């Protein structure tokens, strides 16, 4: 198999679910009412991915808010902060670690099992990585950043084990904060390794928004099978660096920009795939969007995914790839 297609994780929530989440937060609809709509939206996204022919599916994270606070809400020793500004008029809540971290039970497994039951294709288990969880949390308990990252790694390893036991063949551990402090890259490798050690499932890490100049030498050290990178938002300018420092693992290559409302044409995406093929063999090249699509509208996200799949299909046909 070559040029498999996938997605990074999140999809936009349909308007009916966005409204319901607001109502739920005000106590206007019960948990089970919200859950029913989350299931409906998940079904719709799984069906869409199957319909257009994506190879490795995601559940679209319709039941998650922020990627870090979702785990914070489900861990002992963790609380959620008040609002903090991200940029402009955007605010988010952060995890606050107030005690020893532990799981009371699996966090993502029930949703994964339910969503996997909707399709015969593989569906990724999705975790937020230990370094990112640490970097995006307030730490009121652990003595150091390393201690906290490794504490998150311990519970995320348990979660990955449970996903694997439930049947997950692919587990993605997102580390968008990977390049935040380049003096801590050894810690990223150590913490990520503590999550992936002993797993038989294929492991992936996704990262984005970084100045990768100093991160590059670490790409091959990251203890995962596949590296998922934002490529199109930066105009594919990372590619030349890969010529000098070849990647020794699979790459999931972002071919559509998630930060623009403009839906790329099939031709544009095809050009990006052709460029990628100058650097990576098709059996180790996976095609996906730059990042999670949750900030786009449903129509934009679906348009981008359709362009991605159509372009991949066209490249495969032109090259006689299976």
């Amino acid at each position: 198999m070559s040029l498999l297609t996938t997605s990074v994780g999140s999809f936009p929530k349909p308007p009916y679910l966005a409204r319901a989440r607001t109502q739920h937060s005000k106590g206007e609809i019960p948990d089970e009412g919200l859950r029913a709509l989350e299931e409906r939206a998940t079904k719709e996204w799984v069906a869409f991915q199957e319909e257009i022919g994506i190879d490795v599916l995601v559940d679209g994270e319709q039941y998650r808010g922020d990627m870090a606070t979702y785990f914070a809400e489900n861990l002992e020793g963790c609380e959620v902060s008040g609002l903090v500004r991200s940029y402009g008029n955007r605010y988010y809540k952060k995890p606050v670690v107030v005690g020893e971290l532990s799981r009371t039970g699996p966090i993502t497994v029930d949703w994964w099992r339910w969503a996997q039951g909707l399709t015969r294709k593989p569906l990724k288990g999705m975790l937020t990585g230990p370094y990112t969880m640490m970097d995006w949390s307030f730490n009121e308990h652990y003595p150091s950043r390393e201690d906290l990252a490794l504490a998150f790694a311990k519970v995320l390893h348990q979660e990955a084990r449970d996903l694997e036991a439930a049947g997950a063949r692919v587990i993605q551990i997102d580390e968008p904060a990977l390049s935040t402090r380049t003096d801590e890259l050894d810690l990223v490798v150590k913490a990520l390794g503590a999550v992936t050690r002993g797993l038989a499932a294929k492991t992936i890490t996704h990262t984005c928004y970084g100045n990768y100049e100093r991160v590059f030498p670490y790409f091959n050290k990251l203890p995962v099978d596949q590296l998922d990178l934002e490529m199109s938002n930066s105009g594919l300018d990372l590619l030349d660096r890969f010529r000098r420092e070849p990647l020794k693992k699979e790459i999931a290559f972002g071919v559509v920009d998630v930060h623009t409302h403009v839906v790329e044409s099939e031709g544009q995406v095809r050009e990006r795939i052709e460029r990628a093929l100058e650097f990576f063999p098709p059996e180790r090249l996976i095609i996906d969007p730059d990042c999670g699509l949750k900030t786009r509208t449903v129509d934009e996200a679906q348009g981008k995914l359709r362009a991605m799949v159509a372009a991949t299909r066209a490249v495969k046909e032109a090259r006689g790839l299976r």
Partner: protein
Amino acid sequence: MVSTTLVGSYPRIGETPEEQRLRRAIAKFDEDKISEMDLWEVERSVVKEVLGEQRAAGIALPTDGQVTWYDSQSHFARHFDGVQVDGLVRYFDTNTYYRQPVVAGPIRWRENSVVDEWRFAASVAGGPVKAVVTGPYTLATLAKVDGRTKRDLVREFADSIATEVRALRTAGATHIQVDEPAITRNQEDGTLVAEAVETVTADKGKAWFCLFTYFGDVAGILDDLAALPIDNLGLDLVQGDRNWKALAGQGSEVPLTLGVIDARNTRRDDPATIAKSALALKGKVPLEESYVSPSNGLEFLPRDKAREKLRLVVESARRLEAGL
């Protein structure tokens, strides 16, 4: 007497609906549902609220909380000719983003960036308000450049910031702070910061002038920075905890702003421990003329925690004063 101040920013929204009025107003403004004047009214009411919270906590030298700033870079760059404002880039090691200035020609100050904001804050504060500007070295470091050398770029930004400082002084500002966080990441560029500070302070008149560095230490160039023509040197003593050792070894003749309250974490700081650490510098640093502050701007914290940090600043200063 040991005094107290803020570094600059303060959370502009809180958890209550009333404390979120600016967020709602910006959203409505973006949808053309309210006018620029309506938005200003809300911004100004929040500036008053932020000054009030500082006053209530006992902060002696407040700021306007940078309530109207989109970010610390584009807030200045968009008022300079020769610079355009581009997409979002991560701001140092925070989980926040700034719109990146792109230098596309000779940099020239075109119009005031912060003077009107400072004037309003000063009119309602009932006491001195510190004006804060981003430093030329940091502006040059975080901008996308067009091939010019960094030295040239710093010089051009320094001329523009010097013009802004003159305008602040003319408007009546008595306390002016220039922020240079980027130097904590490139201490080998200390001479560039020195040249920029000399340009910016050349015409500061009698205004009290502080150079503040944060998001790390400046231990390797502490002597050089303390020797600049400034009235106060602001240091991050949390993320830049190596500054403690440098101060203990070299001391400082210039009074300091001691950034001792952790502005990046919600953990409650211990004023007794902080005062004890600061008192260890007695005789090496003019503590009586120094300030206690958070380690950097407070906008990285939720509003309730920022309020608590204000109280901890004041309590730490009180304990330090008592020990002198």
